[in-house]
């Protein structure tokens, strides 16, 4: 399956944030989206999710423009893990995960036994079964993020779009999220993740797309794309990119900023 944007110009009001963007995400692929604050990563996500209509260009899911998809069918294939959230009512973690089942319910239905089983599986997959009966609003940021990931998994989508899933998390929780993402990778799932840390792209062994100056400036395998010059250009700071020699799990490229 494929989620793609062709010659897309996207923005708010009259101001284009991204123009003439071409990008595609295939199932089985993991892509990290890099770019400085305000570069338009979230804007691109909103367009891909169909909540922000592009000024020009088309967005296609499996070759069909997304405004031809109904919301429910679309949500069965594309799951979203957003950046910030405020929940006005004290829902239980289990309820929040069950929200992910909505796309698979008929118009007037509520989740049934099978949906509960799927939600249980998702909680188990992320090792957060113990949170099941807790109240979502009382959880820590890291726990909330895990619950939102579980919610997206309960959607059983073919594409997962994550908007900075590690932001506002402590070091340990960031790594845990990355580990989970790595364990989710498979041939049936396409993952698109915005992140502020180029290291995450190395850790996920992912492809990288760089949003810079209103378009997708670079695209390719992380080891080829993330170079010292490119990091200097997008972030305006000096960063050394080095290969960690080691055996097994730590043998990868790392970014070391000069301070």
């Amino acid at each position, binding site marked *: 399956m494929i989620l793609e944007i062709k010659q897309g110009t996207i923005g*708010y*009001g009259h101001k284009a944030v991204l123009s003439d963007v071409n990008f595609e995400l295939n199932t089985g692929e993991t892509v990290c989206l890099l770019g400085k604050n305000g570069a338009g990563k979230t804007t691109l996500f*909103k367009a891909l*999710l*169909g*909540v922000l209509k592009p000024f020009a260009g088309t967005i296609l899911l499996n070759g069909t423009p997304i405004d031809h998809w*109904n*919301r*429910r069918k*679309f*949500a*069965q294939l*594309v*799951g*979203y893990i*957003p950046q910030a*959230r*405020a*929940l*006005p*009512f*004290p*829902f*239980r973690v289990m*309820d929040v995960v069950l*929200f*992910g089942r*909505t*796309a*698979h*319910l008929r118009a*007037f*239905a*509520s*989740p049934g036994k099978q949906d509960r089983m799927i939600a249980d599986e998702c909680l188990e997959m992320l090792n957060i079964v113990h949170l099941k*009966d*807790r*109240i979502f*609003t*009382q959880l820590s940021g890291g726990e909330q993020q895990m619950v939102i990931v579980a*919610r997206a998994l309960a*959607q059983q989508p073919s594409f997962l779009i994550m908007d900075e899933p590690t932001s506002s998390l402590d070091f340990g929780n960031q790594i845990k999220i990355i580990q989970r993402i790595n364990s989710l990778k498979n041939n049936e799932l396409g993952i698109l993740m915005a992140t502020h840390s180029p290291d995450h792209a190395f850790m996920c062994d992912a492809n990288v797309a760089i949003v810079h100056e209103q378009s997708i400036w670079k695209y390719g395998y992380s080891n080829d794309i993330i170079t010292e010059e490119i990091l200097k250009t997008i972030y305006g700071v000096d960063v050394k990119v080095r290969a960690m020699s080691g055996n097994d799990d730590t043998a990868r490229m790392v970014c070391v900023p000069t301070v």
Partner: protein
Amino acid sequence: MNKTSKQSPYRIHRFSGLLFVVLGLLLVATILFSICLGRYPLTVTDLLTYIFTGKNTDPLLPTVLINVRLPRIIGAILVGGALSISGAAYQGLFRNPMVSPDILGVSSGAGFGASIGILMSFTVLGIQAMAFIFGVGAVFLALSVSKAIGKNHDKILMLVLSGMVTAAIFNALVSLTKYIADTDSKLPDITFWLMGTLSRITVAELQIVVPVVLIGIIPILLLGWRLNVLSFGDEEAKALGVNTGRLRFIIICCASLITASVVCIVGLIGWIGLIIPHFARFLVGPNHKVLLPASFLSGSIFILWVDNVARSATTLEIPIGILISLIGAPLFLLFLRKSSKKTW
């Protein structure tokens, strides 16, 4: 298990089935008590004998029951339930526990419609029709205003602000009708209408309003789960597969329909649509599948008791709108003190 999860209100949640039985029984008991209470007292034994065997020791019992007490009690259940359920639905829809059913101007519109009707000496039915039409009309005005001018703003915020503007306009128009009304006949009528009363409900009105309210309530109950999903906001709800625009439209239509249809027969009754959903959320948690029916039941029980006070505390009946505020406000404060952050 740690302390927080032990104290979770969801321990109550698991017993929500039992809670509905309790609320149901409480409603039945309240109804029986309310039937017997009044200027012409009836005993529960006589009443039950009449209901189950058809024999009546008291010759006036059938008349009092069918013509006087029942219409008022059924009307009260309908009013309390309808206002509470639309309050709960609106609080979910606007993701804000401060919202009440008149947030989009339905009450102000209805008040203006009724004032015009009274001013032009319409019949009771005419006044009610005016109240209904202007009530629903005010909501559609608010909806179209928010659609027309709010393209670049947050949809929810624009709806609330358009509702406020609509209400302000209709409130000003109500004051205008009062200002020009004849101070001996029309002005008192308008004032009393605006205060709200359950004493004028007739069987004929109920025959129209009961079906309309039921038609409005059913879609709201069925869409309960989707209202839950809306808690995370528009964009997330869309990404979860909810057609938020359509959902909002259906809920607003149904809630306004039932609010306008009860307001048009009893006048303006405030507060109840704000406080009862809070109370119900405290009882059963935030899941709208159970919160909405729990709001309906609690609202009916609450208004029946307030009405019992209204019609029997003094020889002169106290307008129920006044009494609800007088009883509801301190009760609400008491309840806020008891509840915690966990409730909302």
